[in-house]
């Protein structure tokens, strides 16, 4: 499998990345070489092998249900470009 320049533009758009012509070309060749490697991995017989969700052979530790966080809105909002009445303000999005 190999990608086209249009695929790169599409993925970049989904990731909100603006790529120049040159960046698109270099990304295309890098991603295609990764896909070539994956193509050769396809030769491995994986029948009967369960998909691996995580490379560590550990299971998740859980937390008990209790409120441990306190309100730190003022501190967190110091880096926000625009706030009002406790809300973060962003350019209008309409559904």
């Amino acid at each position: 499998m190999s990608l086209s320049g249009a695929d790169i533009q599409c993925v970049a758009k989904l990731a909100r990345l603006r790529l120049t012509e040159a960046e698109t070309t270099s990304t295309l060749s890098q991603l295609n070489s990764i896909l070539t490697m994956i193509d050769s991995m396809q030769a491995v017989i994986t029948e009967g092998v369960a998909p691996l969700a995580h490379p560590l052979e550990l299971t998740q530790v859980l937390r008990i249900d209790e409120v441990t966080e306190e309100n730190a809105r003022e501190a967190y909002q110091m880096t926000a470009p625009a706030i009002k009445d406790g809300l973060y303000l962003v350019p209008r999005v309409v559904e």
Partner: protein
Amino acid sequence: MYESVIGLEVHVQLSTLSKIFSGSSTSFGASPNTQASLIDLGMPGVLPTPNAKVFEMAVKFGLAIEAKIGKTSVFDRKNYFYPDLPKGYQITQLDAPIVGLGHVNITLEDGTTKRINITRAHLEEDAGKSLHNSFDRLTGIDLNRAGTPLLEIVSEPELRSAKEAVAYLRVIHSIIRYLDISDGNMAEGSMRCDCNVSIRPQGSKILGTRTEIKNVNSFRFVEKAINSEINRQIDSIEDGQQIIQETRLYDPDKNETRPMRSKEEANDYRYFPDPDLLPVVLSDAFITSCRNSLPELPESRKARYMEAYGISQYDAGVLVADRDVADYFAEIAETSGDGKLSANWVMGNVLADLNQTGRSISEFPVEANDIASLIIRIKDKTLNSKTAKTVFEALLSGEGSVDSIIKERGLVQVTDTGALRSVVDTVIENNPHQVTNYRVAAPDKQGKMLGFFVGQVMKISQGKANPQMVNQILLDKLSG
């Protein structure tokens, strides 16, 4: 003729104290962004830690719908950009959900039962809220809701009408309330419903193109939204148009659905396993302890009430839908010793009041014990149906106990034959014309005409006369 094919995706907010991946509070209505921690804000360098309680709640739901429980549960990232999703992805479950195939039974209008399969239920985090209307050309973002645990319950497309969809939704609501895993409050968004709707010619096996109506927030709107969408699809097809697969919103004011502005390539979510989270493995002992803590569920309670209190399937279904109402009814039935009369009073008066006022049974001002006393006074003939209603109204306005209301208002039913006879005599004397008419009328007309005399007697006795006795005395006197 067309047949509609409907599947529901129900999002239920789990009633934990803290969020699914952080220790922030989940309480409703707090000042904006005061319950959004660094994890909820999607700051770099933080790690999510799952809340044990959400697994217990999800497993209980799975057991309640007799589903296969996913002992190994994996979390995935669903990637999309929206300002109320600060990480740029939602943590959800794709291939290894916690609850697999299960089912519930719904009761159709004709009283028959239909089994609806549930494809899966998975855990995920809620997004924040976008407030579009308060600011000029800006949107306000409140992330208090971000990270609130959700259980998304996905049905098979086996519902065939808007009514069936609502019946299914009510069953899900009833189960989550019995399990006490969510408050199920649709108005506050604790339970939200997406409806997938398509139509096809009756008898066809091929599915038509479906549309999805997002975020419908009441039982009534679910029914109306689905019906309006079915009608829209039929009209389009009859006009020779194609149905486009799209997401639509329901506008209750206009009673119509309209397309959401399509987000380009929005369906390419590029799911992948979340590297921040390890698989969650549930032990058999944990699942067994969840099973042992399951309460009695609505369906088995319904069967028990029919048996124990001699009430109909329909009545039992109405009474057990809400666990608190079911408990309230059972207390009345046990104390009064009359299941049928208790069912009539709870459905006809108590539930009628709750529907009218919008309050819940826990906010209802009359104790179960008082309704039971009222029923005991009906059974011992102290009250008739009319005076019982008066006592009920007095109980509602907090005028004291049943017996003190009966005493203060002088509502004891008149069962003294001598007193009733004299009232009947007065009525007959005062209405000679009606008496003559009654006596010459055909026997099948007389029954209806008797009502006039009963009414007059009740009026003079201020509703306190025993109606059965009045009937008997009237029949005797009028025939003579």
